[in-house]
């Protein structure tokens, strides 16, 4: 059994291991069943060439382990988008050669309360000719709503085996597992169901009649809750309250934990540097390695919180309602309601926001949302904004009744959000005009109590996937940047010759940095940033912020030889231009500071975001495009900001 860590093809492969696929509509209880079968033994990847998440896991049967694949939820095997084509190709033995092994058997998962519609999908599934069993979910809901179905008669009418499984019930799942052992003996229907709409409708009526199907009543509980939650006024009030609480929880719960992670690794780094004699090794372990590991782990609290909340809201059924309420607004950006949660989450951090795009059924919308998400003002930009606004706007300045610093900060948030919506609009346009060919539709599921295990598995899956696939990228980048910033190393003689006191840590680190490879790079890229008014020292800061934006503050502190590198405002204000026509004048003038602020609004300075885009799209192409377009945008807008502020200042 080997595991492919790059996107494309199967996630799990194993010679001779049987493979089953779960097929069903969204909200059919398919994922609950998948979790009940595979638990924590699930892996994600991508289908080859498309941005569609692929879930596979192992489940044990009496005849050994088998692979279970959770196919994306669908209402039809008649595809209307490229991503749906790929999924239907998985079910065709004739197209088994591009790394998409055909399942040995299919498990069709149908919602018993929506059986009349779901039998249409089952008819498509049976037409594939693959051995199929039917799992009937939500039979408890069917009974509660005064409906009923005779499963034995349904099995006889369809010619396939039927097993009811309610909310991952253990003994029912065990019955399904036993069934998976004997795929070679599964009965097949004597006559395949018709496909032409009129005949198909007649077939459905006849099957339902023979299965003594009693149609469930309207779900009054759901209707009553929706009367409030989707009310034009109260629904909007509840929506904004929920989203505010959602956002606050991510911040309020995750931020202190992130603080602990940061201070723990900061302390570990200090301890390492004190106890390791060799200064290079001490720097490598203390700054690069521990800093890198801390820089990876620091994202986990936010990812975990976000996925707990999304799993709970989705399990209850509220996520569809939120998307319904927001669809009109998102449509203006060429997206649909479901993209909203992703963009909102990106205010905290683009990484969980990009991971949350998995709930979008259309690959075009997923890519457009991913390309836009990093423009939302994430929490890592805050320290940079605080520092630069402190330089740009005097402390006591006011705009009407508001503090001017707060107004500038708010303006940057608005600028980020508007730019993100515009970017989403452009990218969804580039993805082709498909408003009617690929229409928006979304089922409003009945309200249900969420299963805590589903939330737990969602969090586990998101966190482990992030650590496994993005952790390495972040770690490698951190070490590489550390090396650029700290080498070549300087001996005591050289420091003495340059007039630096070797016992003065601040002076030494400033000297090493000023003569590092990063400084050479900073000089080399001067022509690029010269029009924006940045000199090689600011360039070092921008270079170091490629790992993570907040690094900019500490690096500039080091460059400016500030006594307290975490609060270098005063040292930066004192810095002057070294050469050229502006020599001797302050470096951080209003136009330059404003242009830096705008640069940080747009530039994709975050290796973790790039890593997570690589993981979610399965290729380096999209992170490349994102980095490129955001850099060009950042440069252009920064030049504009410098020019405009220069006119007024």
């Amino acid at each position, binding site marked *: 059994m080997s595991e492919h860590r790059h996107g494309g093809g199967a996630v799990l492969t194993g010679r001779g291991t049987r493979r089953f696929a779960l097929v069903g509509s969204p909200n059919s209880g398919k994922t609950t069943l998948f979790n009940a079968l595979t638990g924590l033994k699930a892996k994600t990847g991508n289908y080859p060439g498309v941005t569609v998440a692929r879930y596979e896991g192992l489940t044990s049967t009496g005849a050994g382990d088998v692979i279970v694949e959770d196919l994306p939820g669908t*209402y*039809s*095997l*008649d*595809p*209307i988008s490229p991503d749906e*084509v790929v999924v*239907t*190709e998985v*079910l*065709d033995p*004739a*197209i088994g050669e591009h790394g998409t092994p055909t399942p040995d058997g299919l498990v069709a998962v149908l919602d018993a*309360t*929506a*059986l*009349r*519609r779901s039998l*249409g*999908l089952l008819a*498509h599934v049976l*037409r*594939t000719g693959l051995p199929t069993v039917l799992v009937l979910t939500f039979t408890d809901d069917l009974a509660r709503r005064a409906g009923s179905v005779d499963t034995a008669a349904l099995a006889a009418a369809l010619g396939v085996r039927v097993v009811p499984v309610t909310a991952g019930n253990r003994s029912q799942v065990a019955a399904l597992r036993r069934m998976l052992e004997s795929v070679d003996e599964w009965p097949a229907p004597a006559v395949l169901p018709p*496909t*032409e*709409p009129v005949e198909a*409708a007649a077939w459905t009526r006849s099957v339902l009649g023979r299965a003594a199907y009693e*149609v*469930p009543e*309207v779900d009054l509980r759901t209707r009553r809750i*929706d009367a409030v939650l*989707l009310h*034009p006024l109260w*629904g*909007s009030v509840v929506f904004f309250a929920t989203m505010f609480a959602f956002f606050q929880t991510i911040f309020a719960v995750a931020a202190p934990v992130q603080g602990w992670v940061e201070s723990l690794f900061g302390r570990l780094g200090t301890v390492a540097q004190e106890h390791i004699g060799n200064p290079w090794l001490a720097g490598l372990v203390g700054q690069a390695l521990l800093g890198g590991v801390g820089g990876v782990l620091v994202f986990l609290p936010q990812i975990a919180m976000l996925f707990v909340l999304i799993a709970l809201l989705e399990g209850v059924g509220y996520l*569809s309602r939120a998307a*319904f*309420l927001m*669809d*009109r607004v998102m*449509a203006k950006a060429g997206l649909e*309601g479901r993209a909203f949660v992703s963009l909102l989450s990106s205010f905290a951090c683009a990484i969980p926001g990009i991971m949350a795009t998995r709930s979008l059924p259309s690959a075009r919308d997923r890519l457009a949302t991913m390309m836009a998400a990093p423009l939302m003002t994430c929490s890592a930009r805050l320290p940079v904004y605080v520092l630069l606004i402190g330089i740009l706007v005097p402390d006591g300045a006011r705009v009407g009744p508001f503090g001017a610093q707060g107004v500038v900060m708010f303006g940057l948030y608005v600028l980020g959000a508007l730019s993100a919506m515009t970017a989403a609009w452009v990218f969804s346009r580039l993805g082709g005009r498909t*408003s*009617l*060919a690929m*229409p*928006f*539709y*979304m*089922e*409003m599921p009945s309200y249900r109590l969420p299963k805590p295990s589903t939330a737990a598995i969602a969090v586990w899956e998101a966190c482990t996937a992030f650590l496994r696939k993005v952790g390495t990228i972040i770690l490698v980048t951190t070490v590489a940047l550390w090396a650029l910033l700290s080498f070549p190393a300087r001996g005591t003689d050289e420091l003495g010759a340059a007039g630096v006191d070797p016992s003065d840590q601040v002076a030494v680190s400033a000297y090493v940095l000023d003569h590092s490879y990063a400084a050479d790079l900073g000089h080399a890229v001067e022509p690029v940033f010269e029009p924006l008014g940045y000199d090689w020292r600011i360039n070092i800061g921008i270079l170091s912020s490629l790992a993570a934006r907040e690094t900019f503050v500490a690096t500039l502190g080091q460059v400016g030889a500030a006594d307290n590198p975490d609060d270098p405002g005063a040292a930066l204000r004192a810095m002057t231009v070294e050469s050229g026509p502006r020599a001797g004048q302050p470096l951080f003038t209003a136009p330059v500071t404003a242009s830096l602020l705008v640069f940080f609004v747009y530039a994709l300075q975050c290796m973790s975001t790039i890593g997570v885009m690589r993981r979610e799209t399965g290729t380096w192409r999209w992170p490349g495009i994102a980095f490129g377009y955001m850099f060009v945008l950042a440069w252009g807008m920064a030049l504009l900001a410098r020019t405009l502020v220069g006119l007024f200042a």
Partner: protein
Amino acid sequence: MSTVSRLLAQRVTPTSGADGILGTRTLADLQPGDRARISGYAVDLPAATRRRLVDLGFAPGGVVDVVRRAPAHDPVVYRVAETEMAIRRVLARGIHVERA
């Protein structure tokens, strides 16, 4: 394209033949609480979209109830085949209905 998809793509979905006829009603013309029967699709609705509508339960002959509208009256939740499905008005305008 898989074999089953090719087969399903051959499905015929009727236009209602009522395009341009005065008084033709579409799903988008109904109010919450209204009930109607789907009579067919507008000519300009792509064939693949019509086939998807059939698979979602918006099939000719099917009975539709209008459940509720979003605050800006778009999208709208319809009840078809015992399920509640939200679609946008632009799509609802392509679905012709008659009195149930």
